C-alpha cells in the first residue's frame, strides 16, 4: 500500500531545538495528526513535542483526529505571543 508524505514545520524554540525548520514524514494512508505525532515521538524531532501539542494543517488550526493527505503542510505551533 503506498504511503503518504507530509512536511512538518517548526518555529521559534521548536525550530531551534530541532535544528531545522522542516522535516518530512512518511505515513500510512489515512493517518491522522495524532498518528503523525506518535511517529514523531520516535524520532529526534519528537523531543520538542509538548504533552498536548497544538497543530495546524495547511495554514489552519486542526484537531488531532484530522486525517492527513500526501503533500499536507503540518505545523507544530508553540504557544503564541503576537501583538
Amino acid at each position: 500500500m503506498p504511503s503518504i508524505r507530509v512536511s512538518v514545520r517548526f518555529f521559534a524554540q521548536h525550530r531551534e531545538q530541532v535544528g531545522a525548520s522542516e522535516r518530512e514524514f512518511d505515513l500510512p494512508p489515512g493517518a491522522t495528526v495524532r498518528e503523525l505525532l506518535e511517529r514523531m515521538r520516535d524520532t529526534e524531532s519528537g523531543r520538542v513535542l509538548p504533552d498536548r501539542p497544538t497543530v495546524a494543517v495547511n495554514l489552519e488550526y486542526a484537531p488531532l483526529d484530522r486525517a492527513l493527505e500526501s503533500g499536507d503542510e503540518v505545523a507544530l505551533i508553540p504557544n503564541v505571543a503576537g501583538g
Partner: protein
Amino acid sequence: MTGDGVIRVGVSSRPLAPDEILDSVTSEGDGAVLLFTGTVRNHNRDRPVVTLTYEAYRDMAEAELERIASEALERFDVSRVAAVHRTGSLQPGEASVAIAIAAPHRDACYEASRYMIEELKGRLPIWKRETYADGSSRWLGGERPPELEAESHPGPDA
C-alpha cells in the same frame, strides 16, 4: 452591513505605517475611524529590553488574521477593517501591530478593535524573543491557542 465589508491584512518585515493603515479604511460613509497600535516596551517586569524579535509563520498568520477580520465584520456593525503585524527585530517604541477600523458609529469601532487585538494575541502564529541589556535573550511564554474539538463537521474532502 455584513457582506460588503472591506478587509486588508498583512504580516510584514517592513516598518509599519499606521497613518497609511488608517487612511486605507477611511471613507465618507463612515462617521468613526479608530486606530490601535501596539508598540515595543523598553522593559518587561523591571528588566530593560533592548530588542524584541518577532518570528511568524507568515502564510498562516496572514490567513488567520483574515479569518479574525472576517469575524469582526460579521459580529460588529463595521464597514472596513485593516490589520498589519510586523516581524523581525524591533526597538522599543516601534509599532509591532496596527489595527484600523471604520464604522458608521463609534461603539462598533471600539468593540471590533478590542475583539481584533485579543483574538490576534491568542491565535496568530507569531512568537517573540526578548533581548536584554546584558545580551541575554529568551522566547516569551505566550498563550496556548484555542483548543479544537474533534472534527464533528465534514471537512472539505468528506
